[in-house]
């Protein structure tokens, strides 16, 4: 069963990417201007030595501290906005998912990132499409290929199968359910990026990493001097 993870875990991933990218672009001159390296370096050394002192001084400077907190909130909220924006555009509750298992191998492996699209602009969801669906009363989204379709529109009966599985998904469905319908599907796979999703797999399998990462990010946001 090629299960996928979505929503919040991916949000963490976006947040980190966004955060790191933001840092790389926000101060380009300091890094690339060779003239500035000498003096800047020594100043940074100094600030590193005095980091505890600066932290204490920040407590005495509430205006700066508030700005840092706001800055951190901005990063988080813009990541959240990006995620929700993508969700609206693609009409899918979880537009980016991470593959957790190997029933679609060799195409999709554990840790790969899939982009979903959930609108039928040109045609119905049809045979051959790779879809992510939720089974009634089960909370694990599954990504498999549609192999049979009977009928048209919303009520069309769909049967799915993993490319790497010997048999179709009838056994994965709910008791008494032989086919999926369109509304069980939360999106068709349109884009693919390898490996990137491993970050979220690590985060969901080792929950303490989340705390550590949020802590480190928070520390950065607070210690950063603009």
């Amino acid at each position: 069963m090629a299960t996928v993870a979505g929503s919040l875990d991916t949000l963490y991933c976006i947040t980190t990417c966004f955060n790191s990218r933001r840092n790389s672009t926000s101060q380009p001159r300091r890094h690339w201007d060779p003239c500035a390296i000498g003096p800047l370096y020594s100043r940074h050394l100094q600030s590193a030595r005095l980091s505890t002192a600066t932290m204490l001084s920040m407590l005495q400077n509430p205006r700066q501290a508030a700005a840092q907190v706001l800055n951190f909130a901005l990063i988080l909220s813009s990541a959240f906005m990006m995620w929700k924006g993508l969700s609206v555009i693609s009409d899918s509750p979880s537009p980016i998912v991470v593959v957790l298992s190997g029933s679609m191998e060799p195409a999709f492996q554990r840790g790969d990132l899939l982009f979903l699209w959930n609108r039928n602009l040109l045609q119905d969801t049809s045979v051959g499409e790779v879809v992510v669906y939720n089974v009634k009363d089960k909370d694990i989204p599954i990504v498999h290929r549609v192999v049979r379709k009977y009928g048209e529109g919303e009520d069309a009966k769909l049967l799915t199968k993993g490319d790497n599985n010997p048999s179709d998904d009838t056994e994965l469905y709910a008791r008494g359910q032989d086919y999926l319908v369109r509304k069980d599907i939360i999106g068709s796979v349109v884009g693919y990026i390898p490996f990137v999703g491993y970050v979220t797999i690590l985060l969901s399998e080792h929950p303490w990493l989340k705390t550590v990462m949020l802590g480190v990010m928070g520390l950065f946001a607070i210690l950063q001097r603009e």
Partner: protein
Amino acid sequence: MHNTLNRFQSVFGFFTTVAFVLGCFIAATDLYAERAPTGTLKVQNLQVVKGRPHYYSSVQEEYAIIKFSLDADLSQLFTWNTKQVFVYVTAEWPAAKGGVNATNEAVIWDSIITNPSADHLKNIGPATMKKLKKSAKGKTVAPDRGILSLRNQRPKYQITHPSRKIADTENVKLKLHYNVQPWFGLLTWNQNQDIGFWKAIKGGVSAPFSLPSIKKKN
């Protein structure tokens, strides 16, 4: 500590940006690779039998076994960004007798054809794997794998209908499809009309046929 981590973060951020942009460039080269696939599908043998969906089921269903032959040239689908091509043959037929729109569609045969760069990921036994790797030694792209020639091929899937009846169905057609799955970028399927450098499949549809009545037990 603040400094080192900050630098590491900047380098990592820059790395991800560069890797992503590079990936997008690679994905964009797909659009400039010409695709002009061709295919000929012929029905060889038709049979409808009665059976049960699985061993412990008491339900009787009708299954169509469609043997076919296929000649296809999908070699142009294999480029450096191709991880695998998923080739599949569907049978489609209209819901009502005399209907025009083929609203029932079922895959009867499929195959995963990997590019040599993805051979190691395939789920096959060690001996087959060795053979597969040997078949494309020193190559990372193997267009010759896209040339298919099947004679009197048994279907992988015996198809039925939710009504459990499929015998005597009229106006059934077999159709060839493919799905190119990349190392990075967009998944693409066979399209109905030409788009840029990508042409629609030439041929790839069988002549319409009718399924026979259930084979009587002698």
